[in-house]
């Protein structure tokens, strides 16, 4: 359709280009690349072990999921079996990461919706999880804990009791947050019926993780293709049927609860034995594929070994790129006021909201806006409409 002269704004990288007609968004064009570093290429020039440190730094929030995906993919090329104890420990740390990631998300959602108190409370509680991660792995963010053949070190003495009591604490807090988000008008009005996607859209666009499950499709890699100890500590897959942001809230809250149960269960049934098996440095020739259920959804690793000291090819497909097209669908039909909450719904890396470019077709105007400005706009908009 024809539109008049457009005045180009500053030439800056924008994560999303929103095309508006009247008040409504009609099209969204993503252009990612602002965090593109060249990691897959760099991996070809690093040894197998060094790549663990590289890949976990793809994302600070699901860093352990990356190291799990990679170490499993490489282990699949060898004839070695990871000992049971290590598999259970991997589940414990992976679920702790899921809890921290979902809490982080929930706090940020509160922030974007204008509920900063929620953000502060949740991030305070999240520190409990980071303390546990630090006690087990030595670090809060990039843990470098999974290694070829198992985990880098065994669980510290006395951690079992601490894990169980902290999981009880988190479960109580989740109940409290759930009551808040389902009654506080700031949250309900901005999440119920907002960002709706259908099962049909999900089937067409192959999203992963909670974004897939909020349409009622019960798929989770931990249940479908169990790895580590998920064949013995089996998660109940959480779904919802409404396909909106409120559904995503429900699912993620329930996933936190489920993860708390899994951590306690894994601690209860923790097998004795070695925490790793030694795998020789030379990785046999071959190709392998591995996927894990990261907090945001399916994370996929393809590894090709030519028998050398460095991988010949590593291909990584993160959950965010799988969900990007669905996120653009979710935005259609909404106004600018809903953009922060809808985009946060897909749980993206949060730098993505930095710069959004808007093309207003009717007014022939193009401009860019920062995430914070949009956040304020959204809060004001909803305040005004409730008056």
């Amino acid at each position, binding site marked *: 359709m024809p539109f008049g002269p457009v005045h180009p704004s500053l030439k800056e*990288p924008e994560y999303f280009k929103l095309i508006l007609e009247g008040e409504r968004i009609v099209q969204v064009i*993503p*252009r*990612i*690349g602002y965090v*593109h570093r*060249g990691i*897959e*290429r*760099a991996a070809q*020039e690093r040894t197998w072990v060094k790549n663990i440190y590289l890949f976990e730094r793809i994302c600070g929030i699901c860093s352990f999921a990356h190291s799990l995906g990679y170490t499993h993919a490489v282990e*699949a090329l060898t004839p070695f079996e990871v000992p049971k104890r290590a598999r259970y420990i991997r589940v414990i740390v992976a679920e702790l990461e899921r809890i921290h990631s979902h809490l982080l998300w929930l706090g940020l959602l509160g922030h974007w919706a204008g509920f900063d108190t929620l953000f502060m409370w949740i991030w305070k509680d999240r520190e409990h999880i980071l303390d546990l991660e630090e006690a087990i792995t030595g670090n809060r963010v990039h843990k470098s804990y999974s290694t070829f053949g198992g985990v880098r070190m065994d669980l510290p003495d006395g951690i079992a009791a601490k894990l169980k009591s902290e999981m009880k604490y988190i479960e109580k807090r989740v109940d409290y947050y759930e009551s808040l988000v389902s009654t506080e008008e700031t949250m309900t009005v901005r999440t119920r019926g907002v960002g709706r996607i259908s099962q049909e859209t999900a*089937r*067409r*666009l*192959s999203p992963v993780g909670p974004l897939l499950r909020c349409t009622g499709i019960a*798929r989770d890699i931990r249940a*479908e*293709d169990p790895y580590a100890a998920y064949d013995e500590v089996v998660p109940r897959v959480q779904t919802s049927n409404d396909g909106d942001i409120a559904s995503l809230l429900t699912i993620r809250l329930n996933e936190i609860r489920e993860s708390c149960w899994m951590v306690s269960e894994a601690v209860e049934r923790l097998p004795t034995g070695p925490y790793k098996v030694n795998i020789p440095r030379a990785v046999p020739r071959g*190709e*392998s*594929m591995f*996927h894990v259920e990261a907090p945001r959804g*399916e994370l*996929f690793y*393809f590894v*090709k070994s030519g028998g050398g000291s460095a991988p010949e*090819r590593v*291909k990584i*497909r993160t959950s965010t*790129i*799988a969900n*990007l*097209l669905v996120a653009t669908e979710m935005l259609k039909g909404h106004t600018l006021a809903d953009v922060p909450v809808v985009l946060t719904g897909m749980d993206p890396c949060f730098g993505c909201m930095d710069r959004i470019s808007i093309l207003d077709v009717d007014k022939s105007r193009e401009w860019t806006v920062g995430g914070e400005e949009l956040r304020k706009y959204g809060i004001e908009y909803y305040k005004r409409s409730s008056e």
Partner: protein
Amino acid sequence: MSNEELANLATRLGGSLATRQKSVEITVSPDKVLQACMTVSSIPGLYHLTTITGLDLGEEIGLLYHFWQGRGFVVVRTAVPKANPKLQSISGPLPSATLYEAEIQDLLGVSFEGNPYLGKKLLLPDNYPAEAPPPLRKEADPDKIRKMMELE
């Protein structure tokens, strides 16, 4: 889809079948990829395209279309010559392939005809040097690329 059905598909398309630890692979020529992907994804439970992987194999660029079917991966495998790296996009009937193809366009220089990002960049910066080969190709030199983009 049973292995037998997949074997039949491979034969129909003039390709071959290989069974691996966690996957079954159908290898076909580039012009049969769209057909193979549509058949594979039309089987109930196989609507999930996990991703598309590109590989520099020297004279050719290998392409692997990974479909996850709930019990194992089904991979459609093909290769295009580096001298003429073109084939048809599957993003029309299978829109979830759009960004995966766009990534390979940027990083390996393959052209997926019909992909909305053809000729545009998804990942690479706009000032990526035109003289430099796509970064994941073996002939690409990261140091040279850095210098060309003045990344010190």
